[in-house]
């Protein structure tokens, strides 16, 4: 698993809260810092890559471990 600077755990929260919480956190981060986002919302599997693509914040990795999704998002320039 890649290194990260900040983490948010959205376990138990449903759409669109993981995206909204990721947005809020990324706003407070500086460019090239990394966010680890943990989700249990299975919709996030599609939603987080879509969010990253549209906002220009590269999605470095995504993996599923024991029913939880772990995303590493890098804050874009």
């Amino acid at each position: 698993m890649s290194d990260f600077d900040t983490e948010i755990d959205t376990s138990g929260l449903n759409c669109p809260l993981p995206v909204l919480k990721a947005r809020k956190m990324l706003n407070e981060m500086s460019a090239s810092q990394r966010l680890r986002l943990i989700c249990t919302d299975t919709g996030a599997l599609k939603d987080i890559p879509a969010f990253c693509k549209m906002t220009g914040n590269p999605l470095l990795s995504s993996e599923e471990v024991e029913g939880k999704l772990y995303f590493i998002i890098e804050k874009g320039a």
Partner: protein
Amino acid sequence: MAKKLAIIASKGTLDGAYPPFLLASTAAALGFEAKIFFTFYGLQLLKKDMSLKVSPLGNPAMPMPVPVPSIVQIIPGLEAFATWMMQRKLKKKGVASVAELREICLKSDVELIACQMTVDLFDFKNSDFIDGISHGGAATFLEFASEADITLYI
């Protein structure tokens, strides 16, 4: 240039409140400029006290724990019960509340526009509504919608 989302919110029920606020807050998170135009019953969504309800009456697709015939659904209290059940379910499943999504919309600069004609029609007072909203009419909406990438009527 930022993409634009234009929504007309015409429903004032608990279930009808979700799509406009949910899509607009998410659009803002994706970098969109978003505006919601509230008309007719949608104006309820701008009230300080929303107290939104959901009714199984006339809504045969609403999942119920046991089948409830339409004739029974007119019993006083059934609507309140259905609303309570829906709210409990939303909370249990980790879905944001309508008030929470509305707050996120305001904080992320989604413009909430009250249709002036329906405000006058229903004799609503500006003091009934939350702060930070604007007022406008058909031309206000159409001007923005004419440049929007996505336009929805809900």
